[in-house]
């Protein structure tokens, strides 16, 4: 009998320990929220480039809405890593996510998977019309809208005004011109100091697709056929553009290290004065003219991306949207927060202080913004015509195939581009067939 009792006690103790370790965190969490009289909404965001601006915005929100408290959960800077973190939470139907940032390519996936709340009632057509049409299109899937665009971006060419002027160049129209100018300037200036011709984003990640798409489209190529939806990356125009990047950019005017660069590393090279040309999103303007960080303040010019002879300039549409989780328990407060962030005054604040391009059309006529950021006025056309990446719920898989393919061929000077392009093309068609 004694032994039975002992066994029973032992089992009880073990189960008790088990129960305590499992249960305490769960109940602990809910308790904390009950103590709070304000509604708590959780916002999954990334670490911004100008944290002080965002701090100010959050303070303003809480001052205007004393009944709502915003808890920020900061995810990684890389959009791919951020996507993985966020989708994991949404997949688990985590109630800890109310509002989240979406990259411009995610709404179809989030809508199809049933993670993002349709916002049609709160964000009707009459309101949508006040936003840039490309950004609204990116947030729509099968006739409904799933996000509110907060700021847009598109690829642009930054250049060193002072260096181009010294050698009598005007900003290049074609990629070939850019390469020639870069070689000339580097061969002269590079004698005295470290200088490269170009810096961009060529690491194996989402940004690589953005950069490469700009070359392919400006050579009259495309990723997917707009009518049939089939892959076009093995067509001569696309292959030619990729070959140009491999032979004339990587390891030529750009250091080989760009194969490991995302935005932060590539802009670091430019603002340290070590690159003549630089491809980046609009925020780079503010950063390269910030005396605290940049050695080239006032020496930066900005222009449309070059194109190949016979093609036209194409910029990839980027930008971030706010979505609300379908599993949020505070949808009303979440919408209040989204409406506040995407309001005219906050977008203006973000444009003025953080250099983020607004999504509301009216702000492109705003005198204060134009005065502080003339590039928004000059580049208005680019924002209006920026080209979206393929819109499919299987975009992440499609993008991974493209990333593998692009990185494989541009990192090896002897790669067989036709063969790899053909294989990637078949893979893309196979994936897209799943969605049909």
């Amino acid at each position: 009998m004694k032994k039975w009792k002992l066994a029973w006690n032992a089992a009880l103790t073990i189960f008790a320990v088990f129960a305590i370790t499992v249960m305490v965190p769960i109940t602990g969490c809910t308790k904390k929220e009950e103590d709070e009289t304000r509604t708590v909404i959780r916002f999954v965001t990334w670490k911004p480039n100008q944290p002080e601006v965002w701090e100010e915005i959050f303070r303003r929100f809480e001052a205007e809405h004393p009944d709502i408290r915003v808890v920020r959960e900061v995810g990684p800077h890389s959009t791919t890593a951020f996507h993985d973190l966020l989708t994991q939470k949404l997949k688990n139907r985590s109630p800890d996510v109310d509002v989240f940032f979406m990259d411009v390519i995610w709404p179809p996936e989030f809508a199809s998977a049933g993670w993002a709340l349709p916002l049609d009632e709160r964000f009707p057509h009459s309101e949508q019309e006040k936003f840039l049409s490309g950004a609204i299109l990116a947030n729509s899937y099968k006739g409904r809208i799933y996000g509110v665009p907060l700021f847009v971006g598109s690829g642009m060419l930054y250049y060193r005004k002072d260096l181009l002027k010294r050698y009598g160049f005007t900003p290049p129209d074609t990629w070939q011109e850019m390469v020639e100018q870069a070689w000339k300037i580097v061969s002269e200036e590079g004698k005295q100091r470290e200088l490269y011709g170009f810096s961009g984003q060529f690491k194996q990640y989402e940004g690589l697709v953005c950069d490469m798409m700009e070359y392919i489209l400006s050579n009259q190529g495309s990723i997917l056929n707009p009518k049939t939806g089939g892959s076009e990356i093995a067509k001569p125009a696309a292959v030619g553009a990729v070959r140009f990047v491999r032979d004339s950019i990587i390891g030529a005017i750009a250091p080989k290290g760009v194969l490991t660069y995302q935005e932060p590393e590539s802009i670091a090279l430019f603002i340290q004065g070590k690159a003549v040309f630089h491809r980046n999103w609009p925020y780079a303007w503010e950063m390269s003219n910030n005396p605290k960080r940049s050695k080239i303040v006032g020496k930066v010019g900005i222009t449309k991306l070059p194109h190949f002879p016979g093609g036209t300039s194409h910029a990839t549409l980027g930008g971030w949207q706010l979505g609300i989780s379908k599993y949020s328990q505070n949808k009303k407060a979440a919408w209040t927060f989204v409406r506040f962030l995407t309001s005219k005054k906050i977008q203006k604040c973000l444009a003025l202080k953080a250099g983020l391009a607004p999504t509301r059309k009216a702000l492109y006529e705003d005198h204060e913004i134009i005065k502080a950021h003339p590039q928004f006025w000059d580049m208005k056309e680019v924002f209006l015509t920026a080209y979206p990446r393929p819109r499919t719920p299987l975009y992440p898989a499609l993008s991974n195939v493209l990333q593998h393919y692009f990185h494989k061929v541009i990192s090896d000077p002897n790669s067989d581009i036709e063969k790899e392009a053909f294989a990637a093309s078949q893979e893309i068609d196979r994936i897209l067939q799943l969605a049909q």
Partner: protein
Amino acid sequence: MKRRHSSITKERIFAVWLLIPCFLVVCIFAFYPIVYSFFLSLHRIILGLPSIGQPFIGLENYRALLHDSIALRSLVNTFAFVFISTFFELLFGLIIALVINKHFMGRGLVRAAILVPWAIPTVVSSQMWRFICNDNYGLVNYILFGSDVAQYKAWLADPFFAFAAIVVADVWKTSSFAALLILAGLQTIPDELYETAKIDGANAWQRFRKIILPLIKPALLIALLFRTMDAFRVFDLVFVMTQGGPANSTNVLQFYGYKKIFAEGFMGYGSTISVLVFMTVFVLSLLYLRIIRTRLFAETVT
């Protein structure tokens, strides 16, 4: 007689009771996920497309895996990583263990210092190695080329050096763990054995070959087992340092499976990769256990 019998049963029941919690934990955290992964791998499940449902497709995913060149490349890379890194870890581990087994001033301090790399979370040390290998401000370039920036190389952009960098980072981190296990083996060797050997005129190499090596074999085998299994699960180094690039030269199975499941949402296909990893590790560990059992017991008995 009867009394005795019942007390044995009682003891058995008691043992079963004590085993149940442990059994439950293993079931919930090991068996269930493995079986479930296998179940998932027989279906087509795509998170972005709930509309297609979860159709049963038999071995279709496995057939696709056979034709997947990236998966094959990842498998080869994983094996290369496991064998190369484990070899160097055991080699350096042995050297370190031999050194810190000697009596010298400040031995305690050295022993503690040796463990520092192992105590740093892998994500942190990977980030550190990524900085060290950076083409512009990395330490490697500075040490090799000084201020001659024209010579600076982008190590992680080169397929060979990127792979080497990951191996070096892993060896740097876990050699001390191997050293710890081997040191434990070394300390079981009584000093008398060395003294007798010395008196008999054995030189240092002979002492190492004839005394140390045979006696630390069990510890070496255990270290080998641990390190192989652990190296097979390599993920964080690749995730932080290269994301599998350039051109998949550092892609490993775990990272590829993670990409499929978490980035692309292909639960079915990703699970197929997990099952492949499980099978490989399972076969490897059976093999090791056999070796250890036969070798180990043969040694200890004789």
